């Protein structure tokens, strides 16, 4: 059993998440599945903050559960945790869609993009994790 150092998990997750936020902005601007409501200048800090929020949660779970997961390598563990946390936030939305289909709309291309980007978040955090260990 290793001593849990949440600070390390949170720090790596937050830094990785900020980078991921910029990746999300770039991919979304390139693929253009929807029209942005705000300007890039407004969205850069917003995407970084949102990315930091997601990354921080993934990083903390990496620290707490990382050694217990039945996968080899930090990148694989990061991807599994990142996708799992993305699903935790995504699935309640599906239930809300079933209750109020007019309010919460399903847009398959965007959800596939989000799932793919969740994997990218896992790769970034896993990569930083591996680098931190070396």
């Amino acid at each position: 059993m290793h001593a849990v150092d949440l600070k390390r998990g949170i720090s790596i997750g937050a830094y990785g998440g900020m980078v991921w936020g910029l990746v999300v902005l770039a991919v979304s601007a390139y693929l253009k599945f929807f029209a942005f409501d705000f300007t890039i200048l407004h969205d850069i800090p917003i995407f970084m903050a949102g990315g930091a929020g997601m990354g921080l949660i993934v990083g903390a779970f990496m620290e707490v559960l990382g050694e217990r997961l039945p996968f080899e390598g930090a990148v694989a563990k990061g991807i599994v945790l990142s996708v799992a946390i993305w699903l935790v936030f995504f699935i309640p939305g599906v239930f809300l869609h079933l209750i109020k289909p007019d309010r919460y709309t399903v847009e398959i291309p965007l959800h596939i993009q989000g799932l793919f980007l969740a994997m990218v978040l896992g790769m970034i955090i896993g990569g930083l994790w591996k680098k931190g260990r070396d």
Partner: protein
Amino acid sequence: MNGREKAERLGKDRVLTAENIIHALVLIGFAIFMVFVIYGLDSVVPGIHDAFHDFRHSAGFLCH
């Protein structure tokens, strides 16, 4: 294992430090923040949900 060894072992494996509790609270805070970002609750913190509209779409969460 005598009492002292046991205490040392417990100390080594102890995970509930004051620092970890603070960081766990930070984590809970950010988890709640992400719920605001993704699902709104504008009556609690007005504006956050709208500001993160583009992020929510881009990250693949359900929006309106």
